[in-house]
């Protein structure tokens, strides 16, 4: 081998490097495109999927962009969307909506009461899928007496009716011509809505492009084109933002606490955090031999240092939670005395319950060790960290906490069947709280039902929840909510940990980034550069 060959090798290596790095002359295209003031590049961890507005397999932010419902839920209450106004009969059973005139679907089709009726008929055809909304069970009839009037009749009064009509799905309106023979349960022919945007291009797992809807009835958005890129990895999303390939990251689980902390005082990027959207909590199984005693449950409440969890694990981004629902949630601003972190009180409560410390530091009663298992979803690093922290903290008061991470489906199976002592849970969140979370406690669907079975007042609580949903009097409803929430708080069934919030990380020149009452909606129509 001679020198020439060695030089050749050097050249080859240099060529390889050139291949790897030599295309720097041309700056990236996306940077140029995002520089236009009316374009926004958004990112999500998966693609938009099936945007049929009457089913649940699509991304909610995208469904919100394309479709409208009869009403919107705002911070100040309900606001007319496709319905300009409405009246409710004195008995609370008949809702009459005056449909907004001149609204057209993005394909030019008229959206009147008949189109809305066609949508309701398609939703009712697939009723079994929507019975999680109590109004579906109470629905007597829907009708369109004329093109401007739409009427819904219920068998009983039901106060969350407008909220259920206002959530993203299924009561979002698609053009009747996009339905398959008047039906949507087996798919649709196109995603044609009345919303602020239309879907103009979509490549599975790559990107989707939305353009402003020229027929939109509301205030025209300043951002005319929104490109949604698919980037599954958390770190890559942040690097893409730094590079200028995307403008906005938005969502509860799209940015971790480290990233929020890192960009908090950055000049190029801004961070926004919403009010609490939902509560991260631990559910205690009152049907369990040890936890049936409310003194033990209360001891665990006092032994949980939420402030330390909030600061240590979430850098203070998720605030410590004192109650099952935050005070900002409707009807939940009631006076409940939080269980303060106090190890001495926790110890005294366990002493009162007859659990005394043995030589190994673990408490015992009649030969039984005070050992509990805490179930968490093994996909969640956060839950694992909190579990490990609690394991060491509870050991200080003599509770032997065994932590168990399980694959998501078996975790959910165990939750449903009540096969746990303690389990992590997150409540439904805005705008489903508190009504949907409480309503679901009455049936064996999630862990709540099984966990509450050991409560002496379970029947009373369930009856009060039913009364809340059918009450027509605001004052009475507030009273009933106060009763249910106080009972659940006093029974110490839930250890509230922190309040989850929505997060946004975006380039500093993007204005109007905020949050709505729905945790899944991204308010693109308010944004501008």
């Amino acid at each position, binding site marked *: 081998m001679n020198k020439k060959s*060695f030089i050749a090798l050097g050249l080859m290596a240099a060529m*390889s490097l050139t291949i790897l790095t030599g295309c720097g002359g041309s700056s990236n295209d996306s940077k140029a495109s995002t520089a236009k003031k009316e374009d926004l590049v958004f990112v999500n961890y998966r693609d938009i999927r099936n945007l049929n507005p009457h089913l*649940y397999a699509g991304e909610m932010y995208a469904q919100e962009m394309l479709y409208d419902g009869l009403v919107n839920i705002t911070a100040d209450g309900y606001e007319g969307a496709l319905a300009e106004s409405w009246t409710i009969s004195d008995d609370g059973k008949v809702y009459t909506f005056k449909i907004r005139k001149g609204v057209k679907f993005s394909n030019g089709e008229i959206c009147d009461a008949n189109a809305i009726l066609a949508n309701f008929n398609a939703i009712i055809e697939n009723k*079994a899928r929507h*019975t999680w909304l109590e109004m579906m069970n109470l629905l007597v009839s829907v009708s369109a007496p004329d093109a401007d009037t739409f009427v819904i009749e219920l068998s009983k009064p039901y106060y969350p009716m407008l909220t259920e009509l206002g959530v993203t799905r299924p009561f979002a309106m698609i053009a009747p011509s996009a339905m398959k023979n008047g039906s949507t349960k087996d798919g649709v022919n196109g995603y044609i809505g009345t919303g602020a945007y239309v879907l103009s291009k979509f490549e599975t*797992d790559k990107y989707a492009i939305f353009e402003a809807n020229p027929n939109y009835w509301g205030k025209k958005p300043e951002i005319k084109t929104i490109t949604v890129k698919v980037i599954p990895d958390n770190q*890559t999303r942040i690097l893409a933002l730094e590079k200028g390939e995307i403008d906005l990251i938005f969502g509860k689980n799209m940015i971790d606490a480290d990233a929020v902390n890192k960009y908090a005082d950055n000049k190029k990027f801004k961070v926004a955090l919403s009010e609490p959207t939902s509560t991260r909590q631990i559910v205690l199984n009152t049907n369990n031999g040890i936890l049936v005693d409310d003194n033990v449950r209360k001891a665990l409440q006092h032994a949980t240092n939420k402030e330390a969890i909030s600061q240590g694990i979430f850098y203070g981004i998720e605030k410590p939670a004192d109650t099952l629902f935050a005070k900002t949630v409707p009807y939940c601003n009631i006076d409940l005395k939080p269980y303060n972190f106090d190890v001495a009180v926790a110890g005294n409560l366990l002493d009162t319950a007859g659990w005394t410390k043995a030589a190994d530091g673990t408490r015992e009663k009649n030969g039984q060790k005070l050992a509990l298992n805490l179930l968490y979803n093994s996909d969640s690093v956060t839950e694992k960290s909190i579990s490990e922290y609690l394991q060491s903290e509870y050991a200080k008061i003599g509770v032997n906490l065994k932590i168990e991470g399980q694959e998501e489906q*078996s975790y959910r199976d165990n939750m449903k069947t009540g096969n746990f002592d303690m389990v992590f849970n997150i409540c439904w969140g805005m705008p489903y709280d508190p009504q949907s979370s409480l309503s679901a406690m009455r049936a064996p669907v999630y862990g709540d039902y099984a966990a509450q079975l050991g409560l002496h007042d379970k029947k009373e609580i369930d009856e009060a929840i039913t009364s809340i949903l059918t009450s027509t009097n605001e004052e009475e409803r507030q009273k009933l909510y106060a009763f249910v929430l106080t009972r659940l708080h006093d029974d110490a069934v839930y250890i509230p940990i922190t309040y989850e919030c929505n997060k946004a990380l975006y380039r500093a020149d993007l204005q109007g980034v905020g949050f709505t009452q729905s945790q899944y909606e991204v308010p693109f129509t308010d944004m501008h550069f």
Partner: protein
Amino acid sequence: MRNYIIKRVLGAIPLLICISFLCFVFINLIPSDPAEVALRVSQVPVITEEIIAETRAAMGLDKPYLVRYLDWVINCLHLDFGISYTNPDRTVGGELLRCLPATLVLAGASLVLVIFLSLPIGFFCAVYKDSWFDRITRGFIFMTTAMPAYWVGLLLMWLVSIKFDLLPTSGNGSWKHLILPAFTVSLTYISTYIRLIRNNMLENMKEDYVLYANVRGLPQKSILVKHILKNSLHTCIVAVGMSIPQLIAGTIVVENVFAWPGLGTLCITSIFNRDYPVIQTYVLLIGVLFVVFNLLFDIIQTIADPRLKNEVS
């Protein structure tokens, strides 16, 4: 020779049946009810017993286990791999077909990089054994084999895309998007092949035929390239044969990091979403690829190597 090929092909059939059975059994060993899982992953908010019963019937889960397996195998042979749980309007076959080209492009580009970089470097490492070039290369190999692909990917992204502003961070669409993921995937293989070629050449250099070639006064270049390198590549051919399915299967993490919409991203997404039909078919596909490539390269090597060919005959 023909008999040998027929024998090998027929021998692969029981193996394929075993793979299909294992794929089916393992997915079905999961204690959760597939109907309920399908409903959960399609985000039905409250799952009642009635919807579960309806879904079970629709998915054919009320049939006996073996009947379901046979149905599944027959459907697979007709290229009908079922429906995705997460996206009920997409078929599993359609999803795999959609993602396969992107993965083949990435795996192909990586293979080209592996061959074009490892062959000359491995060759020069052997020729200049213990020189500074060899030492540096070995140190580099030692380092890169120990570095996990996702970390290398993120480091390259940070360095090349952010700091030097040379390439896009992620996505797919142009050849620029391909460079970083292909280099990340190939890095581990490059290290392996450099080592393989270097060691094989060093072994071969000690053989008698090299001594005779030297005695005959053949030029050094000819001995190194025509004899030593050629003889050292036999093992590499087998290794490349197994590396192709490995490259296709091994792009999982890198595809996810670089948002490359191939089979790996599909597999990771399906694992996170518990989209069992997709996972099952992906595992089956990779299993079949390993069997097929193993078979193919065994046959190629038998044909290429006169000693093996005589043995078979």
